């Protein structure tokens, strides 16, 4: 395990030298902390209705104003972060795990399996996401779990495809052949030799995927296909504020800023992670 700790430290040292990546990391960590401690940090109950103070602008009582039901927007944004976090965490880890499994099966398994899986991936990817989401919601009714399910189903092919390509590129490498010559089983090779080598690109992809998933949740919730009525989510905040945009832009601005920050934070972080984890750019410090 000392190796892994060393690896993390090394990565972090390299990250510290990259100001953009560091900015990304700071944004990401801040957002994570704010949402994790939403229950402590929120000045109000995000569901508490106060009809006497509808649509007020920012003030000392309500830093980001209130919405059309007089709910505190700051509290709703903080709690909404929880939804975003839950969706991205669950959806990305499940689709990454499934994509990893299926992609490695396609990349390393027999040819017929590869063909079947690639056809499945491509079929799934060819559905327009919104149409797909609409039809699923029509069947099940809007809920957070439906959103997560939709995102998982549409993301698996993306991860699966990438894992498949990476695995295939790996499979004819000398070191994989050397393992086979030594008598290693396919499972052993996949776990100990393929996985560690494709993990880095996959993690980068996942970190860049967070904003997309958060945006997708917000989009679906904005269309009323996501979280149901009182639960705050960045998408539903935007949806609520949308009708009152002309009189009170606060809810829209407050719901939009975290989306922008998440996108920027994870993109900066992911990009700099990519540069750091690329073994060609690391290690010997370049060819002399």
């Amino acid at each position, binding site marked *: 395990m000392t190796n892994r700790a060393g690896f993390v430290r090394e990565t972090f040292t390299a990250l510290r030298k990259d100001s953009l990546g560091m900015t990304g990391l700071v944004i990401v960590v801040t957002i994570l902390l704010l949402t994790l401690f939403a229950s402590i940090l929120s000045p109000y109950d995000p569901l508490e209705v106060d009809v006497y103070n509808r649509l007020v602008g920012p003030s000392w009582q309500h830093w980001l104003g209130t919405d059309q039901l007089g709910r505190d927007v700051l509290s709703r944004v903080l709690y909404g972060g929880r939804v975003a976090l839950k969706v991205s965490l669950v959806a990305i880890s499940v689709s990454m795990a499934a994509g990893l499994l299926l992609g490695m099966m396609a990349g390393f398994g027999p040819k017929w399996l590869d063909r079947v899986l690639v056809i499945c991936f491509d079929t799934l990817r060819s559905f327009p996401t919104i149409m797909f989401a609409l039809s699923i919601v029509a069947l099940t009714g809007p809920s957070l779990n439906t959103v997560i399910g939709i995102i998982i189903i549409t993301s698996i092919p993306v991860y699966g495809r990438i894992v498949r390509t990476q695995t295939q590129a790996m499979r004819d490498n000398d070191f994989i052949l050397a393992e086979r010559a030594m008598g290693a089983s396919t499972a052993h090779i996949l776990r100990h030799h393929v996985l560690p080598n494709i993990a880095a690109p996959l993690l980068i992809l996942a970190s860049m995927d967070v904003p997309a998933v958060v945006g997708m949740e917000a989009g679906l919730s904005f269309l009323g296909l996501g979280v149901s009525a009182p639960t705050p989510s960045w998408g539903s905040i935007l949806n609520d504020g949308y009708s009152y945009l002309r009189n009170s832009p606060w809810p829209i601005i407050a719901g939009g800023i975290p989306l922008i920050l998440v996108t920027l934070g994870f993109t900066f972080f992911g990009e700099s992670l990519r540069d750091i984890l690329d073994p060609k750019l690391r290690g010997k*410090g*370049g*060819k*002399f």
Partner: protein
Amino acid sequence: MDKPVLDIRDLSVSFLTERGLLRALRNVNIPIDPGRIVGIVGESGCGKSTLISAIIRLLAPNAQIDSGSILWRGDDLLDLEPDAIRALRGDEISMVFQDPMTSLNPVLTIGRQMTDVQHRDNRSKAEKRARATRMLERVGIPDPVEQLDRYPHHLSGGMRQRVAIAMALMTEPGLLIADEPTTALDATLEVQIIHRLQQLQRDFGCAILFISHHLGVIAELCDEVVVMYAGEVVESGSTRDVFLNPRHPYTQKLLDCDPARIKKATRNLPVIGGSLPDLVELPDGCVFRPRCDISIDRCRSERPGLEGSNHCIACHLARQ
């Protein structure tokens, strides 16, 4: 005697690394006279690649030139503007690499690539094609007209290397730099290529800087040899002098290691003990001393310079 086409004088190059300054080349002197074939021998880490990069001015961004000059027909290449260097690279200095595919474009036909290199000429397309055909013929490619319409992957390794040489000679350069051009080839093809190079050198009169770690190839092809070790020239002179009468301990050991020179079959091949010095923290005195069997106290404190008029040796003990 003619002035050298390329004269590397007292060149020192180092790289800024995380550990400190890596001194890849130190006070290297290599004059290349017109029409001569000069071979550079040395093992990995001796600075061959850095030297080539310095000549064609394609050093890594973390490199710095500490001292010296590289004179091309009297002008210092290190002072030239990037545009002038680019013009020189295509026109006067050509290169052939170990892997011919690095200089051939896989998606263009041989003919197209060979006419493209003549872009500076004001000739008609047909004339350029005819020139390309003649050049392919001269490097020993059978049915050159047919080959013009083929793609690099249609050709065998030996043929590709010939095409790469033909392309390098299209502009009739003053200097051809060949970086291990035969390493990827087999013995029989290797011999064919080096004989062809010798022939072409006589026809075109260009100088050739030939880099290889294959001692036999150098001995067979080159007029002069430069032996490099850990970023320094340790011995240089005519091929005959250096190979028949090696005087630097490193050259001697290197030649001893060549299994081709050991006529009697042995299961115990000679090796050079120890390893290359750390180029960041160089030892004082002679750079080869830690691996040398005959070193004296002076070798520990004083770095030997390259001395001699024709056969030069950088060793305190060689003059005795």
